[in-house]
């Protein structure tokens, strides 16, 4: 279903001014009449990818559902920064119960709406990666296998950022967290662990699975809007850089997210009923080093005691993703030379 990406011009960001697009191709965010599902004034950190992702996703869901959306939220940053009363940022009905049960609570809301004949009201569940791949995994898998009518969105910032940056099963290898310190012969998170939730979701043969990043607003919104045209269990996994946890500049959130995709470390694709139906090819292939160097959680791989061996293993992971999903095509620009990478990030 992915619309062909619009490529009028590029300034290194691939951003396209909405004013150059036909009305029906413009983003939800560019619509002056769009909802503010999560309103301004919340207490997310500067440059928070999750706040951005939630805003993009929910406003798109609201437009797709004609404003008839109920949200269920797991415990985590999103829940904490959005509801320090007397302010709530939510302009949609919003329920937070626990850390590990958002998918099941969403199931309950969907069941109640169905029994009351209010199937015009749609249910969106939301959690960070901890609430999705770790503590909420059991209830998520249950919701998937029952094919409950819920769109569940994971805002993946690759760790427990709300509690002070600890490792989750979504933390990538070599990344430094408070529980995978950058010490010893294998600094940072270990290789060979972790959960690939989009693929696990696909194994449930649910109607729709997609990945996205906050770097491509058009793509993210289209996936949410498409998901809302379907019924049953649907899952969207959005990569949301965390300046605090990743040690990246607040102003680099979009850039870091784009490099995660363009390096192949975070494959962007969609799948229906267990099969991959489209991938977002890499436009200008980046070396993982270009991505890693922007983040202090990987600082131990560079600097005074560089670990090119570990960087090479991360590059292998990216290359494996590229091969698995076919992320490189004829239009992909070649990977830059290593010297150019250092030039770019310094």
């Amino acid at each position, binding site marked *: 279903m992915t619309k062909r990406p619009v490529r009028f011009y590029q300034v290194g960001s691939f951003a396209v001014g909405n004013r150059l697009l036909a009305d029906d191709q413009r983003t939800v965010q560019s619509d002056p009449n769009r909802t503010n599902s999560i309103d301004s004034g919340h207490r997310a950190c500067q440059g928070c990818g999750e706040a951005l992702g939630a805003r993009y996703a929910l406003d798109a869901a609201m437009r797709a559902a004609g404003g008839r959306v109920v949200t269920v939220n797991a415990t985590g940053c999103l829940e904490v920064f959005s509801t320090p009363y007397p302010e709530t940022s*939510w302009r949609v009905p919003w329920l937070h119960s626990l850390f590990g049960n958002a998918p099941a609570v969403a199931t309950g809301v969907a*069941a109640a709406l169905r029994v009351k004949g209010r199937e015009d009201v749609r249910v969106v569940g939301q959690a960070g990666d901890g609430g999705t791949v770790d503590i909420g995994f059991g209830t998520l898998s249950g919701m998937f296998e029952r094919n409950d009518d819920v769109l569940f969105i994971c805002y993946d910032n690759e760790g427990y950022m709300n509690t002070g940056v600890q490792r989750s099963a979504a933390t990538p290898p070599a990344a430094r967290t408070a529980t995978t310190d950058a010490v010893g012969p294998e600094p940072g998170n270990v290789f060979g662990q972790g959960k690939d939730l989009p693929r696990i979701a696909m194994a449930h043969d649910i109607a729709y699975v997609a990945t996205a990043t906050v770097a491509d607003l058009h793509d993210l919104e289209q996936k949410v809007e498409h998901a809302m045209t379907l019924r049953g269990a649907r899952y969207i996994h959005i990569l949301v850089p965390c300046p605090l946890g990743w040690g990246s500049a607040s102003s680099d959130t979009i850039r870091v997210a784009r490099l995660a995709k363009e390096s192949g470390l975070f494959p962007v694709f969609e799948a229906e009923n267990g099969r991959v139906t489209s991938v977002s090819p890499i436009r200008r292939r980046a070396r993982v080093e270009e991505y890693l160097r922007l983040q202090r959680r990987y600082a131990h791989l560079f600097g005074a005691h560089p670990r090119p061996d570990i960087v090479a293993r991360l590059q292998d992971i990216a290359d494996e993703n590229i091969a698995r999903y076919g992320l490189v095509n004829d239009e992909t620009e070649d990977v830059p030379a290593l010297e150019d990478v250092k030039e770019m990030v310094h």
Partner: protein
Amino acid sequence: MLRQIEGSRAVAETVALCRPEVVCAYPISPQTHIIEAVGAMVKAGTLAPCEFINVESEFAAMSVSIGASAAGARAYTATASQGLLFMLEAVYNASGLGLPIVMTLANRAIGAPINIWNDHSDAMAARDTGWIQLFAETNQEAADLHVQAFRLAEELSVPVMVCMDGFILTHAVEGVDLMTQDEVDSFLPPYEPRQVLDPDDPVSIGAMVGPEAFEEVRYLAHLRQLDALALIPSIADSFAVLTGRDSGGLVHPYRTDDAEVIVVALGSVLGTIKDAVDARRAQGERLGVLGITTFRPFPRDAVRDALAGASRVVVVEKAFSLGGEGVVLTDVAMALAGRDVALHNVIAGLGGRPITQGAIDSMLGRASTGDLGRLTFLDLDESAVSRERSRIAAARRTGPSAENVLYDRATQGSRVAQEQS
């Protein structure tokens, strides 16, 4: 209509009459027959509209109930023992959010050692969850309490747990007078939620509450529990007018008026105790029984009043706070604070050990002669305990105690049988 029916079936059919809209089920003995029967009614279309959801855990069962209730549906589930513990985080959450979910607890022991039989250690572990806890003495009362529970829960926006003894009640077939749909409808109005997830009137439910308001929110929850102490008797009175039955209420005194010794207990064991008391009354002893129907909120005044004439109180209970004493005893002791009364605690029926009339009778005999201590474990095999204590004292790697005691009891038993033959 009076029917010879299994307790679980009676509860399932009564719950169905309450028109639940979302029912979650995760199987655990001895709760299974209840949810199987409700599920069959939904599948057959005789209970409609209702969503029956087979979930992957008790944690999900309570979580789905939370979502359904917050979206305005009447939600019901049932569990027992380990299941209650597995969902405990969500059990607290349901009451904290003020969602009037009704849940049957088919009381069963908590492991380890794993044990599927009846005691009250599950309910007592949930004592402080903020749920109202009602204990059924009979299957008739178990069925009736569910109708009252939905009304109570929804009037107060507080969840209610109906406790019925696993197997002893859930699997017992006896006569139960089932209500009609018209009777239940006249007693239980449709659920009108105080808070609901509605796109036309968006609210945030479950926000972070800091020190500036947390205490007030908890205190309000406490006040709702105190409101329940007033509401429960009035609901039971209305129910009695409708059905002629005295199901529910705070406490059930039995022959307490002139009693010098009163036995306090919860649940189905009350029947056995009443039989024992009747037999000893026939011998001229002045004994009475106090059944506690509402355990949370604890009806301290009602208990104190009911025990006013007693010089000796024996609390028989199926749970124990290790390193302390009985859980019910603690509450009864507080109710009797300042009163000069001898207080005894009898722990009985743990893990489903039968509580016989003979054992109760002999215990009451010791109570009447002043030979009953403060704390008694009824029918405890003290020799098996002391043999295991000796093994532990004699060596380091003595292995798992539970298995040692099982082996000891089995082999000692066969030795006794051999000696007798």
